[in-house]
């Protein structure tokens, strides 16, 4: 299989020693620019959005980033060993049992699949463990094929309204070296949560000796979004507010996954406070119910102030009795 090396640092336009904050910032900026909802050239933007997401998926995860950095220029060589991590030889007496899997249409590149989320068996590292005595005792006996698991990248817009995705799964029989590719389409139901698994019957490893094929489990991964994150069916949005908005309160218009809402910010809202907008999260099953939208208030300070503003802050300093380093007055 010919796989192209992906330079995730170039994709995000950050230095190799970029801090997690720099990576996050770069991702947000690019994700906003190429967000499929706003971009003019939709098809192009969607590909770019997925590329950015994949780079973010690796570089924002300390473990994955470490592994990726270690691969470096030796990635092609390292790739051969990568899936066997922790068990270099595999179980004794069972050389290279089981087929190799390769996904298409999941939203992740071949490179990512190979190193970070390639088709694993039962969610365990692919190392081809076979039932004891398989080769001699049960030769000719019907045996069910293994289940295969893989990830599928789903944007929040897709999770909101549901979608149909073409997926392909190529399996290579280690005995004959023959590769077969199966193509199919899978419906991702509206409201699919991050981590949810979709069972596709009969699309796992083929059975042996007339046994049935295993199943394929596709695990939904929500694409990171510049504005929203999810937890189950709930959606989180970080709302930047000015200090006076936090103190005086007010009405603020904010985006949701479907249209905008006007939020009434109460007076004296603390930094980090969480407000709930009921029923504006992801759909919950077929019931028509929906998760909630949580708004996390983040008080921002101005980075530069005019002469006039400065005079007002000075006036506030001389007038206010507030001292954050003293216990609150009884």
């Amino acid at each position, binding site marked *: 299989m010919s796989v192209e090396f992906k330079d995730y640092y170039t994709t995000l336009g950050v230095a190799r020693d970029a801090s997690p904050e720099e990576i*996050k910032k770069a991702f947000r900026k690019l994700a906003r620019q190429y967000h499929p909802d706003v971009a003019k050239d939709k098809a192009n933007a969607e590909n770019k959005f997925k590329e950015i997401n994949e780079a973010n998926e690796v570089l*924002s*995860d300390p473990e994955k980033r470490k592994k990726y950095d270690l691969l470096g220029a030796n990635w092609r060589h390292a790739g051969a060993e990568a899936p066997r991590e922790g068990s270099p030889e595999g*179980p004794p007496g069972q050389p290279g049992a089981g087929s190799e899997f390769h996904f298409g249409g999941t939203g992740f590149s071949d490179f990512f699949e190979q190193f970070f989320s390639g088709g694993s*068996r*039962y*969610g*365990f590292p692919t190392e081809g*463990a*076979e*039932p*004891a005595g398989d080769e001699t005792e049960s030769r000719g006996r019907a045996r*069910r094929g*293994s*289940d295969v698991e893989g990830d599928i990248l789903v944007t929040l817009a897709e999770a909101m309204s549901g979608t*149909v995705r*073409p997926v392909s799964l190529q399996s290579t029989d280690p005995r004959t070296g023959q590769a077969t590719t199966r*193509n*199919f*389409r*899978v*419906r991702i*139901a509206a409201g699919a949560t*991050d*981590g949810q*698994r*979709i*069972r*596709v*019957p*009969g*699309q796992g490893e083929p059975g042996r000796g007339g046994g049935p094929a*295993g*199943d394929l*489990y596709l695990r939904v991964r929500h694409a*990171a979004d510049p504005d929203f*994150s*999810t*937890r189950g069916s709930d959606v*989180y949005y*970080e709302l930047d507010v000015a200090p006076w908005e936090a103190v005086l309160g007010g009405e603020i218009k904010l985006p949701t996954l479907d249209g905008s809402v006007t939020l009434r910010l109460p007076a004296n809202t603390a930094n980090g406070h969480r407000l709930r907008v009921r029923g504006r999260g992801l759909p919950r*099953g*077929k019931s028509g119910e929906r998760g909630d939208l949580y708004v*996390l208030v*983040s008080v921002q300070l101005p980075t530069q102030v005019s002469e006039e503003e400065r005079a007002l802050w000075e006036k506030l300093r001389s007038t206010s009795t507030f001292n954050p380093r003293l216990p609150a007055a009884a």
Partner: protein
Amino acid sequence: MNPSPESTAPGHPPFDPPIDATYTLEIVAELTGVTTRQILYYQESGLIAPVAGTFDAPAFDDETVRALRRLEHLRECYGVNDSGLRLLLNLSEEVERLRRDLRHYQQLR
């Protein structure tokens, strides 16, 4: 039974997994190749839990089907005993939960 997903060619309907599907003991046995007796034993040991139904006539979901296959895989391929299965099941559930939390917090600023 579910129709088998076959092709991306137009005219072939996409595979449409049922939401919140539940299966009887017998169907789960058929789906997993695990005997009904063994499934009931796993249930009694607390390794799997039904989503509905009674103890003798439980209803399971797709996650149970997956759990059963994983249990059988660990038992057959690695000779893991009941205590080991419990340990591995709990550990992998906890790792999955922690990873989910981690992803959530990483996405927030």
